[in-house]
């Protein structure tokens, strides 16, 4: 479960005040709202990349407001994937496990299993330069999933893809959510994506998040 309780945040002339929302365990939630309304900020607050000035952030029943981003059990896929520019695809996917000092064999096994699952096994030795948009998103997804998070935060993972790749990516996201039993918060401004994917739609406007079941 992901829950924001009266979360506030402010920088310069942009602020969020008393934001509340909840995503139930195992749900695929889609967060929608106009450009600049603070969707990405909400995701970054959940990740721990921005510190709220007030309120609490709960992940999987635990208060993670004061936790470091790496201790929140969250997988994060930002817009455009934000891949590590000097690493191979295999190194990217194994990065989180390497930081956690897992054994090399375990890392290799996880990387190859995830790469198979995401259809990028043939790219493991490639560097990120020259990967297509869809491939980049799959690599970013594999990198986030490798640490077996309870929650997956996806910031507009489909909007940058070509139209003919979108359906394939959506099917993949839905399958991944079921197989890995993760709670997903997917940010988009496409109501079509919300219709296809969402168990629950969160609409953000003027600093307020309203939930409705899909």
């Amino acid at each position: 479960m992901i829950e924001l309780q009266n979360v506030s945040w402010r920088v310069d002339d942009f602020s969020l005040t008393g934001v509340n929302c909840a995503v139930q365990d195992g749900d695929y939630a889609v967060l929608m709202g106009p450009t600049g309304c603070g969707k990405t900020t909400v995701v970054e607050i959940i990740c721990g990349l921005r510190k709220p000035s007030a309120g609490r952030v709960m992940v999987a029943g635990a208060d993670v407001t004061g936790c470091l981003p790496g201790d929140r059990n969250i997988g994060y896929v930002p817009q455009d994937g934000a891949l590590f520019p000097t690493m191979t695809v295999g190194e990217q996917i194994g990065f989180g496990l390497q930081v956690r000092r897992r054994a090399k064999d375990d890392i290799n096994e996880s990387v190859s299993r995830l790469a198979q699952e995401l259809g990028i096994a043939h790219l493991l030795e490639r560097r990120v330069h020259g990967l297509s948009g869809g491939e980049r998103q799959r690599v970013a997804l594999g990198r986030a999933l490798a640490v077996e998070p309870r929650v997956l935060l996806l910031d507009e993972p489909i909007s940058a893809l070509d139209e003919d790749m979108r359906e394939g990516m959506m099917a993949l996201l839905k399958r991944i959510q079921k197989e890995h039993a993760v709670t997903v918060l997917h940010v988009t401004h496409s109501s079509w994506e919300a219709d296809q994917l969402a168990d629950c739609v969160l609409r953000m406007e003027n600093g307020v998040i309203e939930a409705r079941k899909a």
Partner: protein
Amino acid sequence: MASLARFFIGPWDFILSLVRDPNARFWFYLALSTAGYVLFIVAMLVATAVHSTPGDLLSALQSREIQHSIYLSLLTCSLTALLSLLAAVPIGYLLARCRFFGKALVESILDIPIVLPPMVIGLCLLILFQTGLGGFVDSVIPFTYTVFGVVLAQFVIGVAFAIRTMRGTFDQLSQRPEDVAMTLGCSRGGAMWRVTLPAAGKGMVAAASVAWARSLGEFGPVLVFAGATRMKTEVLPTTVWLELSVGNLEGAIAVSLLMVLFAMVVLVAMRLVGERW
């Protein structure tokens, strides 16, 4: 540039296009300015080179003083480049990633060594090391009129350029990958070390090479702060000045050519390394 290519098709067509086509005139003026400046630089170097003979160069290289000056220049410039990089990476990163009160003032202060006359920097260093704290530091590590002083005088200016280069490099690199690395368990420092620094390799090579090249030519601050003692604090620009002051123009030219050669070799080598990174 397409209009310039026309020159090779037919000079008359080219002249006609200059008269008729304002875009052709625009490119022509740009090409003319560039060619003029490039020719000016090449003319300076060629004039200096042909004024000297291989014999002059050889006899200059055989001088013990000049050999020592070459050795000291290479040593101090390399040390300065390394120290400049060590300082420029954290400062450049801070300026690129953080917003804080007084940042504009800090940035202006960091640029002071670039805009101050070099001789004034040497004088400021000399006065700083006459103060209580400076005197204490000088009694522990002697800077004034020593090789350490040569490095410090070169460093003050070299590092300012290295910081500008590193700041530009970090500005170009998105913070997003670092954010992701943090969600995967890295601290901010760990994310910088594992993700951003490897991607900043070209920038680091550029920063080190610009610091090296600046240090090689640094004369004013070295002269004022470290002196011009032969076989002790004499670096190549000092040699040029000393040789000129005793009327040995051939020796000064030979050393100048050597400096041009060093600077070009280092810049080309750094560029090759940077491209492979």
